[in-house]
């Protein structure tokens, strides 16, 4: 009988080995797949209930995880809700993460490579992972001001430091309350998400960098001006015919001059004057003369057609190719199929203000692990040289002239040399999108901005955008 007992013991030991084997399979080899399984609410609870790092602006948390007792350990909250929604995005257990919650997820959740040793330490100390906090380059007061300026309107404001690329303000209006979407209570989340998605004003888009992109309208004349000078066909002294209407080649369409300015006063004009009054016909002629390749190249030098991550993904701006001259003429004044983002427009002004060097826009000032060691610190990074210093200086002076003596005067600030360019984009309805882009002070630029108000009438829009620019410049410079 002892033989049988021994064999039974050996069989038992074999069963234990088998059980250890299957446990090893489940807990080690198959573990990753099981944890990635869509039904694994554990992963959901863990990632959406984890203590993520905060998103901080000027020392104030704009996204923070607070302790919760609804099955999730933590609840993501957004104390300033709408003001930062376009930047923070939301962190929803149902719809996932957007904005910086998504772009900086590795750091916020504590899963980045840089936090590897923290995770190892946590494994032994038993502490639950706490993510790194992310501080933004945003100027809290400027962001608040920009948000207020857009209240009740659709549109966007972007402010950059032209010398460093730091994003000082970025607002998209209308905004939304990410707190509702981050709720762990499914029904209101689903209802709110459906409502936001069906809203024709598209509040979930951050218009500053994504969304439907805009026609840049006359703000594109900055690029025309650079192209004109770079082509060698024109100088600051060149005089160009300024007809009130320009018949476009091979069509029966005529391109009229902008009626809001003083274009009728002269039948021919320098680029400086045409720029200040935003006359269309001289720029259409410039474009047709230097050719679409030259314009396209200049546009590209300023960032058109380039991918960009700040680290939010920025939609590419588009300058069309293979155009007829008539189409090129329209494209040269930022209409036709030219598409851009407010950030791209602000970057264009920033490059002009910064001696032709375009700095890489960046929202992140620093990333600090939960024990306050620094994982990342902002350092200014040159994105590209957009144009020569000489050309940049010339166009900068034209932009200053446009504020001092032209139709962008609404943005002027006492005692400061401000450069700017307005734009009025026709959208096919009886309202327009009103633009302003510029920088201040011209000799030592502190801020470059782009402002766009959607669906306004021409006069109101122009007042809104230039006045908004003025208030932002004053806020930055004081």
């Amino acid at each position, binding site marked *: *009988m*002892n*033989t*049988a*007992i*021994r064999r*039974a*013991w050996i069989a*038992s*030991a074999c*069963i*234990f080995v*088998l*059980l*250890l084997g*299957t*446990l*090893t*399979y*489940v*807990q*080690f080899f*198959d*573990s*990753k*797949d*099981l*944890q990635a*399984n869509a*039904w*694994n*609410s*554990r*992963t959901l*609870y*863990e990632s959406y209930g984890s203590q993520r790092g905060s998103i901080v602006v000027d020392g104030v948390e704009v996204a923070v995880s607070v302790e919760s007792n609804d*099955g999730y350990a933590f609840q993501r909250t957004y104390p300033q809700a709408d003001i930062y929604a376009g930047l923070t995005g939301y962190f929803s257990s149902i719809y996932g993460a957007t904005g910086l919650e998504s772009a900086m997820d590795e750091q916020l959740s504590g899963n980045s490579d840089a936090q590897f040793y923290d995770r190892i330490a946590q*494994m032994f100390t*038993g502490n*639950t992972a706490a993510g790194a906090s992310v501080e933004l380059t945003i100027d809290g007061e400027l962001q608040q001001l920009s948000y207020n300026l857009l209240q009740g309107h659709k549109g966007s404001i972007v402010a950059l430091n032209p010398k460093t690329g730091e994003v000082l303000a970025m607002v998209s209006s209308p905004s939304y309350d990410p707190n509702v979407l981050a709720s762990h209570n499914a029904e209101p989340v689903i209802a709110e998400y459906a409502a936001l998605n069906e809203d024709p004003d598209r509040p979930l888009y951050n218009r500053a960098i994504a969304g439907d992109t805009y026609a840049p309208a006359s703000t594109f004349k900055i690029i025309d001006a650079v192209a004109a000078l770079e082509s060698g066909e024109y100088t600051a002294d060149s005089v160009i015919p300024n007809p009130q209407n320009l018949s476009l080649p091979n069509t029966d369409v005529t391109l009229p001059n902008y009626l809001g300015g003083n274009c009728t006063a002269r039948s021919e004009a320098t680029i400086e004057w045409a720029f200040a009054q935003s006359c269309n016909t001289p720029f259409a002629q410039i474009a047709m003369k230097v050719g679409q390749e030259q314009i396209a190249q200049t546009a590209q030098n300023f960032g058109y057609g380039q991918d960009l991550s700040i680290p939010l993904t920025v939609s590419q701006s588009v300058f069309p190719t293979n155009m007829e001259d008539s189409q090129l003429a329209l494209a040269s004044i930022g209409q036709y199929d030219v598409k851009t983002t407010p950030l791209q427009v602000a970057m264009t002004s920033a490059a002009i203000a910064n001696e032709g060097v375009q700095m890489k826009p960046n929202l992140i000032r620093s990333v600090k692990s939960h024990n306050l060691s620094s994982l990342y610190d902002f350092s200014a990074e040159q994105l590209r040289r957009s144009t020569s210093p000489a050309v940049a200086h010339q166009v900068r002076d034209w932009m200053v002239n446009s504020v001092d003596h032209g139709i962008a005067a609404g943005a002027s600030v006492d005692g400061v040399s401000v450069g700017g360019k307005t734009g009025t984009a026709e959208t096919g309805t009886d309202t327009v999108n009103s633009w302003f882009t510029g920088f201040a002070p011209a000799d030592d630029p502190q801020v470059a901005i782009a402002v766009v108000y959607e669906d306004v009438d021409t006069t109101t829009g122009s007042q809104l955008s230039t006045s908004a620019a003025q208030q932002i410049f004053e806020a930055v410079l004081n």
Partner: protein
Amino acid sequence: MNKASTVSRVDTPRSRRLTELLLTLCAIALCPISMYLIDPDRAVENRMWLQALLVQGVGALILHAVMYLRARYADPFILPLAVALNGLGLAMIYRIDLTTPANAGAMQLMWTGLAMVVSAVVLFFLRDHKILLKVTYISLLASVLLLILPLMPFLGLEINGARIWISVGGRTFQPGELAKITLAIFFAGYLSTHRDLILLAGKKIGPVRLPRFRDMAPMVVAWLISLAVLVFQRDLGSAILFFGIFLVMLYLATGRLTWVALGLLFVVAGGLLAYNYISHVHYRINAWTHAFEPEIYNQPLGGSGQIVQGLFGLASGGLFGRGWGNGRPDLVSYSNSDMIITALGEELGLMGLGAILMLFLLLISRGFRAALGTRDAFGKLLAAGFSALMVIQLFVVIGGVTRLIPLTGLTTPFMSAGGSSLLSNWIIVAILLAISHAARAPHVVEAFDSADSVDYSGSEADGATSVISRITDSTTPQGGRG
């Protein structure tokens, strides 16, 4: 080889009660420490750790005292192993209470104390385990009664489709847990007395000699009981367990693997029938083979949700586990009873679960060791049978939660929440202790006092190894020390 000194050591085998006491003290500390690790603030606040320490401490001391008085040479490892496993289970049940509506901790602690006391009482009166041989047929009757109880109207209670509980005064109890003890006693008693008849009388069909039906009849009755359990109580786990013990003990008694193979054929045939005609079994098998198909996963009754959630729990634990109190056992249904292994795997990881498995392996090894050491066939069968019982139970539970085999409801010995399970396992501990005492006790040596013919050479007395086992071993062709 200094024969004299070896013999003198053998003449006074050590009781090893001090070893047992020290190991038990370590084992007792496991539960309070775990409770503290789970949540220090709450542990201090609710004093559960202190209660666990007191209950397990007093229970273990009583058992220790009874062993000292009545079974001084009992195996020194069985008690600490059982206390350790029981303590870890207590800690996990307490931990699950903290984050779920479950409130099983206090009850489990009470049952722990009660079961340890009952164990001490059994050990006290069971000075010689061979008394149990006299109740062979009473045990069969008791088994039948215990298994029929839940089917009684007014008394029986159906929970989640299985009718294996009885309700007395608002408390539920699983008589089947005790039936596994009485069935093992019956199998051991019957097989040890009828072994020769079963082995030798009977027709030979081809290479296989089959026993006469009349010799096997009581066994068949017992086997039918387990089938009836399956059909009427819809409890697949217990049915597998009962049939498993039947096969293992038949093998232990006869050494005939062919019969085990035949028995397994019956299992396969029975399984196929059950799969086709019993919906409960059908669901279980489907949930096993198609666990990750949405319609099976989402099926509210008999679906694979529990298995899959359990797998997620194990996977989330990974190698090192989330740590005490850091997992999400609240996401797995029955995480403090049938699925406690997944909760332990999630919080203690593969490492912790491996350690727990090692504790179990040691425990069943001590059981087999007692079986090897004791001289009577009944004791051998009973000790080995109880050990095999635990192995089968662990195989069904862990195999079930890891999807090696279909998941069926069975408790994890000593760990799962449930008074009946604890009680029966602690009674098994008492019987194993009694048998191991019989195996190691020195008084038997006297009969061989002048047996100079016994060759002790090569047998380094290791304390836990009894001289008797060596003597009996040397009479079997295989020899060895076990």
